[in-house]
C-alpha cells in the first residue's frame, strides 16, 4: 500500500517469491510454463526464419500438411498432456482436505476490511481480530473463507494463490509460512469503492512466540479497563456501536474489533502505519484516506478529544 521501500529493487515481485509450501509449487509451475512458452517461441521463430531465408527443400517441407499434423497436433498433444499431468500433480497438495487438529481461522471479507476469528478445537470463534492474521511458522493453517457482503478474494502472494470469498459459501484453503516474518496481502476480487485499499498483513511467529501472542490476545488489553479519558471519548462519540473492545462494555460488531488495535502493524486494512497520529487522522476523517469506507468522518471531536481517544486506542496492545 505504501511506496516501495527505498533501496530495494522490487524484484522478485511477491508472487514469484514463495515463502511456504502452498506457494512454492505455483512458482515452479509458473517458471516451467514460462520456459516452455519461450521454447515454443524459439521453435516458431526458427521456423519463420527457415520459411523466409532457408533452402528451398526445407521451405517446401514447411509448406506441407504434414507439418500441421506434427507441429500443430502431435507435438502440442504430447507437450500439453505432460504439462497437465505435471501441473495437476504439483498442485495436488494445495487442494488436500484439511487434517483434523490443524489450526483453523475464519476470515470473513467485509467491505473493505477483514474480520479474523481464530477457532477453538470445537469450531467456535474463540478470538476476534481484524485485518491481521497471526500464524505459527512451519505448520499449515486452515482458513475458512467467507464473505459478509460481496465477493472478495483472499490473496497473500508469498504464501498461496487466490481463493474467493463468496457470500453463501465457505471456501477452505491452507497457508503455511516457513520463516517468521510479515507477509502482505491484498483483496483480489473487485468489491467496489476502495477495493484497491483493502490490504492486510499475515504475521508468522516462531511457535513459542506465537503462543505468547495468542495468550496476550486472549485476554483483554491491560489498558482497556482503565479510566483513560480516551475511553470516555470513545463512549461519548458512540464508537461502541460498531466496535468491540474486550474488557469494556463496547461490543459493536459492524466494524473491526479494536481490543488489541495498538499492537497491529497497520491501520485501515493494511494501508497506514499504526501510531497515535495516524489513528487520530483516521478517526477524524477516514473518508479522505479511504473514500467510501463504512466509517464516517468525525468532525465533531475537539483536538484534545482526538488525541485522547487515539492515545487510548494506541495503548490497547
Amino acid at each position, binding site marked *: 500500500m505504501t511506496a516501495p521501500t527505498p533501496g530495494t529493487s522490487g524484484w522478485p515481485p511477491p508472487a514469484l517469491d514463495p515463502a511456504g509450501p502452498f506457494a512454492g509449487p505455483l512458482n515452479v509451475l509458473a517458471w516451467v510454463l514460462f520456459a516452455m512458452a519461450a521454447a515454443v517461441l524459439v521453435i516458431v521463430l526458427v521456423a519463420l526464419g527457415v520459411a523466409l531465408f532457408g533452402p528451398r527443400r526445407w521451405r517446401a517441407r514447411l509448406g506441407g500438411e504434414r507439418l500441421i499434423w506434427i507441429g500443430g497436433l502431435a507435438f502440442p498433444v504430447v507437450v500439453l498432456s505432460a504439462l*497437465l499431468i505435471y*501441473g495437476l500433480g504439483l498442485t495436488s497438495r494445495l487442494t488436500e482436505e484439511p487434517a483434523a487438529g490443524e489450526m483453523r481461522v475464519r476470515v470473513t471479507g467485509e467491505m473493505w476490511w477483514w474480520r479474523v476469528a481464530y477457532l477453538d478445537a470445537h469450531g467456535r470463534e474463540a478470538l476476534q481480530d481484524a485485518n491481521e492474521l497471526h500464524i505459527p511458522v512451519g505448520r499449515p493453517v486452515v482458513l475458512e473463507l467467507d464473505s459478509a457482503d460481496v*465477493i472478495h478474494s483472499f490473496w497473500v502472494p508469498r504464501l498461496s494463490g487466490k481463493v*474467493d470469498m463468496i*457470500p453463501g*459459501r465457505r471456501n477452505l484453503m491452507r497457508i503455511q509460512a516457513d520463516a517468521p516474518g510479515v507477509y502482505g496481502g491484498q483483496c483480489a476480487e473487485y468489491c*467496489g469503492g476502495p477495493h484497491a485499499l483493502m490490504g492486510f498483513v499475515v504475521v508468522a511467529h516462531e511457535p513459542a512466540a506465537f503462543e505468547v501472542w495468542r495468550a496476550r490476545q486472549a485476554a483483554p488489553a491491560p489498558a482497556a479497563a482503565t479510566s483513560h479519558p480516551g475511553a470516555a471519548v470513545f463512549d461519548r462519540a458512540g464508537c461502541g456501536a460498531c466496535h468491540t473492545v474486550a474488557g469494556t462494555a463496547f461490543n459493536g460488531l459492524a466494524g473491526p474489533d479494536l481490543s488489541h488495535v495498538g499492537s497491529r502493524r497497520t491501520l485501515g486494512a493494511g494501508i497506514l502505519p499504526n501510531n497515535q497520529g495516524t489513528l487520530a487522522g483516521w478517526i477524524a476523517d477516514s473518508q479522505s484516506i479511504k473514500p467510501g469506507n463504512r466509517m464516517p468522518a468525525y468532525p465533531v471531536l475537539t483536538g484534545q478529544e482526538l488525541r485522547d481517544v487515539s492515545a487510548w486506542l494506541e495503548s490497547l496492545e
Partner: protein
Amino acid sequence: MKGETGFDPGLYERFPTKGPRPKGELEALEQVWCGPKGWQWITAINNNFIGVYYVGAAMLFFVLAGVLALLMRTQLALPMNGFLPQETYNQMFTVHGTVMMFLFAVPAVEALGVLLLPQMVGARDLPFPRLSAYAFWAYLIGGLAFFCSIFFGLAPNGGWFMYPPLTSTTYSPGINADFWLLGIGFIEISAIAGAIEIIVGVLRNRAPGMTLDKLPIFAWAMLIFACMIIIAFPSIILSTLLLEVERALGWPFFDALKGGDPLLWQHLFWFFGHPEVYIIFLPAAGAMSTIIPAMARTRLVGYRLVVLAMLATGFISFGVWAHHMFTTGMPTISTSFFSAASMAVSLLT
C-alpha cells in the same frame, strides 16, 4: 458441357454482346442501381452501406473506449496517483471493458462479415437486409446512449463482468447497473439478429456450384462464429434478465440469503464469456487464412484441417468456461477437467 448443378457455362459465350444497347438503358440502370443520395443514406439497407456504417461505428466505439483506456493508464502510471477520483475510475474501467467487448469486438467482426460475406459467396445481399439495418441502428444508438452515461456519472461501476452481489440493489443502489443490464441485453439481441442472417446467408445464398467444401475459409469462420453466437449469447441475455429482475422486483437469483447463489451469475456469464472470445477470434483467424494465401499467391495449406480445427474449436470452447472461475472454490475434479479442456482447445486454436 454442363456444370454439376445443370448450368451450361456455354451460355457465357453470349457476352460481351455486340451491337448497340437500347436507348436509355444506361440511364435506367443507373437510376435503379445508384447508391443513396443525400439523406437516403439513413435508410440504406444494402449490405455494402450497412457494412461500412457498422465498421465505422465499431471503430468509433474503439476510439471512445480507447480514450477511457488512456485515462486509466494515466491514473495507473504512478503509484497512488490522484488523477481520477475513485468513483470515476471505477466507472471508467467498467465502461471501457464493456464497450470494448460488447460494442467494439463482436460488432467489428460481425461488420466484416456483413460487408464481405455476400459477395464472397456470390449473393447479392444478406438474406434480411432490413433486419441488418435495424440491428445496426439499434446497436449504434443503444451503444452511444450507454457510453454517454459516463458523462452523467451514471455509468455502471461493477466491473465489466458485473458480478453480483456487488451489482445487486444492496450494493449498487443507483440505476448505473441497470444501464449495463438493459443496454447489453438489447445489444446482444441485435448481435443474434446479425448471426441469424450470416447463417442463412452462408447456408442458403451461395452461388451455384459453391459446395461447402469449396466455401471460402472466411465464410466458414463466419458460419461457425454465427452458430456460436446463437448458442452463447442467450446465456448472457438470460443472466442480464435474471439480474435485472432481481434488481427491479427483488427476486432472489443471486442473493445467498434468499436461497440464490452468486456463482450462478458467474457460470451463466462465463458460459457466454468464453465462447465470446472465440467468437471474436474466429473471424479474425478466417481473415488471416484468407489474406495470407492471397498475399503469398498460393493455396491455403490444409484447408480441411483448418475447417475442422475451427469447427472443433467452436465446439470445445463451450466446455471451458469455468477456467474463469478457478479461484471460486470448485472441487478439484472440476478444475482439473476444465484445465484439460482448456489445453485441448488451445491445441485446436
